[in-house]
């Protein structure tokens, strides 16, 4: 089984360890991973800001890079959404490109989705003695309809107690440019998310979206010292029993 | 170009898309209720809105219930849709001491009707339908049934025959609007008393319409 890794820009630059952990998890499952060094960003920031022509250029680059892969996996839900749903929309006036985009859309997966739905694995052999909870990132949950998969992977971790997070499906206030352009509103949202995390009593807040992680962990670092948010891939990779 | 033509032309010149096929109509589980279940559901739903359902075995029993409500609520003046509602002798109430009743037919013009309806302690009306789904009354307004009787007075007492009790709105609407030449000028669904929560989300009854609603259902 061969998987092409799509490591989005936030991970590549800001949190490369999530990419490493993604690679570790897949390798441990016997998957051959490959990484195209020509990859950059999916163009979501440009698309969301309204720069569709520029985003289109990036989309075509992405399709050129990943177009021939059987299977593309990424540890970022919103970027998968961008490729899966917005590329075909963006390229609607260019039938040949749109066809390539639609074709690729059927071959791209979010990491937890790929592990649980395609590889049919829920137990990765990790152990963790502590309480965790899970933030349902907007694009993972409502964009890709992924919710059960990460929870199954968490349930597969030995010794871990899952506790409920109040308003777990509420947005954390990231929204890319939103967090920078509307900081006060964004703050009110991430404050609530962090407060609910603290209230849950969990040791670690898990999530599957690098953007949310950047936002929540940045807020926790300033306001709730000692509270940790982690990408699910990192949590799993860190706690896999060393053989 | 007049507004009508301009608007319609603009709408018609817009790009057309093909109609999408409707998914199947959602199943209404209420349709399987039997009469007993319907009565129970009606009372439960109405009660949830602070309305009260009385089941009367026959018109005579209904009259007794009505008298009891009148006494308990201390009501003195009424406007009623008719002297006889579902066989209940409303006119006989007027014989009791200190109580005044007037009837829809007594009012030939808007002014006298408004005067009486806004002054009355209660409106006593028929209801053409009852809907179990939500404890709702269905009322056809016409010259025998002025609109104000059930909305202007602070208490509304409705008398309805159990044979007019249906599971869902559809049953009623199909009948009322079947023949477009015979539609009433107004048909209303009434569910419990008037209510508001507009200040601080605090709910209270009787904002502009009745504070209390009583439904007497004749079971014979």
């Amino acid at each position, binding site marked *: 089984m061969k998987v092409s890794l799509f490591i989005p820009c936030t991970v590549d630059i800001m949190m490369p360890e999530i990419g490493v952990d993604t690679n570790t998890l897949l390798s441990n499952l016997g998957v051959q991973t490959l990484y195209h060094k020509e990859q950059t960003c999916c163009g979501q920031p440009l698309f969301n800001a309204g720069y569709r022509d520029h985003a289109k250029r990036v989309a075509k680059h992405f399709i050129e890079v990943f177009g021939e892969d059987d299977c593309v996996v990424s540890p970022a839900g919103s970027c998968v959404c961008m490729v899966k749903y917005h590329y075909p929309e963006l390229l609607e006036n260019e039938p040949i490109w749109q066809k390539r985009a639609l074709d690729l859309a059927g071959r791209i997966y979010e990491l937890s989705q790929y592990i649980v739905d395609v590889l049919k694995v829920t137990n990765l052999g990790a152990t963790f003695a502590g309480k965790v909870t899970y933030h349902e990132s907007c694009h993972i949950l409502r964009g890709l309809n992924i919710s059960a998969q990460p929870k199954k992977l968490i349930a597969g971790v030995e010794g871990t107690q899952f506790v409920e997070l109040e308003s777990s499906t509420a947005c954390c206030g990231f929204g890319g440019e939103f967090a*920078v352009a509307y900081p006060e509103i964004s703050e009110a949202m991430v404050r609530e998310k962090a407060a609910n995390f603290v209230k849950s009593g969990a040791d670690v807040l898990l999530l599957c979206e690098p953007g949310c992680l950047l936002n929540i962990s940045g807020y926790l670092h300033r306001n709730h010292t000692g509270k940790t948010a982690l990408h699910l891939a990192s949590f799993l990779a860190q706690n896999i029993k060393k053989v | 170009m007049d507004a009508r033509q301009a608007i319609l032309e603009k709408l018609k010149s817009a790009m057309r898309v093909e109609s999408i096929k409707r998914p199947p109509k959602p199943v209404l589980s209420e349709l399987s209720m039997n009469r007993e279940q319907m009565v129970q559901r009606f009372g439960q739903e109405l009660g949830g809105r602070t309305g009260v359902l009385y089941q009367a075995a026959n018109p005579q029993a209904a009259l007794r219930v009505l008298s009891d409500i009148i006494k308990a609520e201390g009501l003195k003046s009424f406007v009623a849709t008719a002297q006889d509602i579902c066989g209940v002798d409303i006119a006989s109430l007027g014989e009791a001491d200190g109580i005044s009743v007037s009837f829809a037919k007594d009012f030939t013009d808007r002014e006298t009707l408004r005067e009486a309806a806004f002054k009355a302690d209660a409106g006593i009306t028929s209801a053409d339908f009852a809907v179990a789904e939500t404890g709702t009354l269905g009322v056809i307004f016409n010259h025998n049934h002025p609109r104000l009787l059930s909305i202007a007075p602070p208490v509304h007492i409705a008398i309805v025959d159990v044979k007019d009790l249906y599971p869902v709105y559809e049953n009623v609407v199909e009948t009322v609007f079947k023949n477009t030449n015979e539609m009433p000028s107004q048909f209303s669904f009434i569910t419990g008393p008037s209510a508001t929560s507009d200040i601080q989300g605090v709910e209270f009854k009787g904002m502009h319409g009745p504070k209390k609603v009583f439904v007497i259902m004749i079971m014979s």
Partner: protein
Amino acid sequence: MHPHANKFMETARKELKNEQSQMFLLMVSLGAPILRQIGMSTFADIAAAEAYSRAIRADVITRLPELLEAFEKNAVSNGAKVLWAKDAAEANHIILDIANQRGVSYVMKGKSMITEEIGLNDHLIKNGVDVFETDLGEVITQNLKLHPFHLVGPAINVPPSEISEAFLKKGIIDEASTDPVKLGGGARKYLRDKFRNLQMGIVGVNMGVAETGTIINVENEGNIRLIKSSPKTLVAIMSLEKVVPNMADAVSMIRMLTRNCTGQKITSYVSMDSGPQKCDEQDGPEELFIIILDNGRSEIYSDLKTREILKCIRCGACLNTCPVYTKIGGYPYGATYCGPIGQTLTPMLAGMENTSDLYRACTLCGMCKQICPAGIDHPSLLLSYRARQIELKNQKGKKTMQSRGENAIAGLIALGMSHGWLWSLGINLTRPLMNSMAKDGYIGNIPMGAQGWFVCRDLRAIPKKTFHETWDDLPSRPESSGNTSKKEDS
């Protein structure tokens, strides 16, 4: 409508600090979805019910012109007078004319977003016809001169003490009170004589039924039923998207409307009028005017994408789940419509230029789309507005220094994103600059650029190596050492 959406953030900041507003927003965000869920649980299959109401609204906008013509024909044959108005000015003029011709000194109004949208009250009052709002929430907003805080509860946030003060001044109550029941009771008493002597009433319309020419109003207070019963003259004003094909569809939509609006299975009153009173009736209007208002909607309809906005049934469910609305309330949106529906509708009604905060202040979380019983994809609409704005800014002759600069930066980013080596170069140039501001591995602020980020959060210092640069150092898979596939493309 008086859009002042350019003050979006200014107002939002105030509201974020307003304890009263925050308390009610918390109540709305926690309570409303629960009430809705309880209401929806009466459906045997909630998803099927949602799919069906969405299909009805999709059907309506597909057949809009035909349905409107059928509605008109049938309403006229019921005896109603149907008038069309292109814009706010025309509608206001028609209504003032009707009032003047009948010599009425005042009118009473049922809750209606559309009359707020066209600024009817101001127009009538300016021309000597007094207007009494009758919905308790609107009695309050009218007397305190407030925009709606919420689509459904326009004054739900206003402290009773402020209501009391305004009501005292207006003579609605005789003595001060902070009891909502007493304040409401005062309004009831104050308006009762006016209802009794009313000569002309004005209501909005929740649905106009094409097949029967019927207008339907959904309400709890009974003010609309009084307005539809007491006066000789009734004016119903309906924006042109409110039409539904037939009574069966109307009933299906009513079920969804009330559940999504207040969580109720049904409101206290649903009144359905097919024409004016019949000649032997003692009450009900002798003449019923139905005004069909365009006010920019046919233009919205002309675009396949924006057409979707016309599916809206004004239930307000999107407000209650919106993470932005539930933090800032209705005032920052600066217009009749707030929350996600305001964000999609107002830019179309008031223009894109001064409303950019409305389509940009959104995280695209998708809550609104998920809950919408009419099937509107708000995030997708907002994204299309953003694209439209950028297009407009970069049109020939419209370019400014700023738009040129922004576009150049976006272009540069796109260029970098389209070339792997350029991308890496950019990162390697930026990293030392960013990290020079880091302390203990975190950046707390930067002198320029994305400072909004640092208002409430830190940013981890940028790691020494990107994933890209790490890849070659990664160990090969243990169970297939020597396998080259991992690096075959590097």
